[in-house]
């Protein structure tokens, strides 16, 4: 039971990391709070649903489509909203409200277009993906089904989502620490004014980060039907709050701190579900407050800023 909770917590933790990552990237680079993050995730989930039902596209390739599509959407959206916002007196607080408005628009638009009924993708579609990979290695077809990890059995969809989330986190690491654009992005995160003074095209860098942030939300959305249950246009707000808890635990503005936040969140959530399920829902909130009171800028807050 303990091993099961820890492993399931780790899988969910990786997924929660993916949920928070895009939000944290946007906050880190632009110091604005994308309260519509969960709604972009919801749109990604709907995209995966339609790709799956209309064109029979498996969720795994849908990840690529969702990411590219949302980066392309995010780029102009940045230029439409953010430069004007950053000229205001208190952009951080105003961004809360601006993106709350955007989240309302997205939720309402989706409701008008698709209605409020719940939608889901059969979980075995992800299982098929893992079976395909296994059969490539084994050289013969493998039945899709639950996956064994360290003697515990998990739904294949959890394992695939966890692995995909881990891969996405690695790619963000590569983007931030191994590419020139990432180098510039970190410069902007560190000090926006000095980045401007050093001749960096801050808006181009920020637009890229904004696009990647939305893309990551959409990728998380593709797995949402398997990890969060059925999807409706209204799930956005709750997801945003979860994403917030994750990144605040890790520390705002530090994308890699998100991993720590996500894993802590996931493991503690699963432990509570197993041992004390009546009060499981209270845990994330209490954890968030407790960590903030002990370390007001998140677990990794200060060390990173000094580095």
């Amino acid at each position, binding site marked *: 039971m303990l091993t099961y909770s820890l492993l399931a917590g780790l899988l969910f933790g990786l997924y929660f990391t993916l949920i928070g990552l895009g939000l944290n990237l946007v906050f880190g680079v632009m110091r604005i709070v994308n309260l519509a993050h969960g709604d972009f995730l919801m749109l990604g989930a709907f995209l995966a649903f339609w790709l799956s039902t209309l064109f029979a596209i498996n969720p795994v390739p849908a990840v690529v489509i969702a990411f590219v599509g949302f980066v392309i959407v995010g780029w102009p959206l940045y230029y439409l*909203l953010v430069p004007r916002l950053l000229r205001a007196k208190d952009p951080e607080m105003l961004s809360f409200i601006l993106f709350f*408005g955007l989240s309302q628009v997205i939720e309402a638009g989706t409701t*008008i277009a698709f209605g409020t009924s719940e939608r889901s993708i059969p979980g075995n579609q992800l299982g098929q993906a893992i079976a395909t990979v296994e059969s490539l290695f084994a050289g013969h077809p493998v039945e899709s089904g639950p996956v064994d990890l360290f003697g515990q059995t998990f739904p294949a969809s959890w394992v695939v989502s966890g692995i995909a989330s881990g891969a996405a986190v690695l790619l963000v690491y590569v983007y931030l620490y191994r590419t020139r654009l990432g180098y510039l992005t970190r410069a902007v995160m560190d000090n926006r004014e000095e980045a401007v003074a050093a001749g960096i095209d801050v808006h181009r860098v920020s637009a890229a980060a904004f696009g990647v942030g939305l893309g990551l939300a959409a990728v998380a959305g593709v797995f949402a039907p398997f990890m969060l249950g059925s999807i409706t246009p209204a799930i956005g707000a709750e997801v945003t709050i979860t994403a917030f808890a994750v990144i605040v635990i890790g520390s705002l503005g530090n994308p890699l701190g998100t991993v720590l936040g996500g894993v802590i969140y996931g493991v503690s959530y699963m432990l509570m579900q197993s041992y004390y399920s009546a009060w499981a829902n209270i845990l*994330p909130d209490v954890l968030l407050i407790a960590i903030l009171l002990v370390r007001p800028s998140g677990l990794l807050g200060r060390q990173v800023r000094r580095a």
Partner: protein
Amino acid sequence: MPRIARDLSLILLPVVAAFAILPSLYSNHLLLFNFIIFITLAQGLNIIYGFTGYLPFGYVGFFGAGAYGFSLMVIHLQSPPLVALAVGAAAAVTLAVLLTPLFRLSGAYFSIANLAAALTVLQVVSNPNLEDITKGPYGITLSGVFNPALSYGTALAILAATLALVIYLRHSHFGMALRAIREDPISAGMAGINVVRERIIAWLLSALVAGLAGGVFAWYVSVFYPETVFSVEFTIFSIVFVLFGGSATVVGPILGVIVLYGIYNAVGISTPQYFQLIYGALIMGLVLFLPNGLASLLQRWGIHVP
């Protein structure tokens, strides 16, 4: 204090008089009552957000605490409504005292931690394990004290007191100190303002207003679920109303409630999605083009806004 007297007679008196007369002209009393609640909440939020710059996303937690403080007193101790109302307000203020450590946080951290706190209170109150005490998720029924006329009058009195408080803040030394802290806490501290104390007083006053509003809301509607009185929508609506009208003013939040909540009731009930769409777009437009609310527009035209 001529300016306080002027605002009391030109803003507080007409608003309160209008809500005192309207029930005899207009039959939907619940709607009028909701207007009173929202003006009170918007002004309560204005005290903390407008005057100190802290945006509590969990402001509804105090409203809910007030509603449950009221209800539990009535259910378990059969106390008279006004006593229960005082206990509800005390519950909200106690919660605010417990949450004062949150002021160590700033900006987004404060907002989110406060939201988490409100959700925690909701989870505790609606937990099925506590059904004997709080009725858990099954909701509260207070038919014994149901008294629409008296509770409406009490709500109106709370509104009047809240407006008077905001008018006082707008023109007093204390309100000026709060705004100085909002602009620059370090300079304010060097000018001899006790930053921590003044901020916490504003916080407790703000919670008191929400607690009273929650208590009287519970009394008036008398049947509700935990999700009703802890709905984040109360916070969101209040923030939008304050922002639309103009924070740190007296008339701004009133204007915000009358215009936006008016529109909401005109079109929102029949076609909620379209309303949500318009509402969201309106909020975005406001932030982008009029970040300081309607009041700033008037000020730009040279009109003084109290």
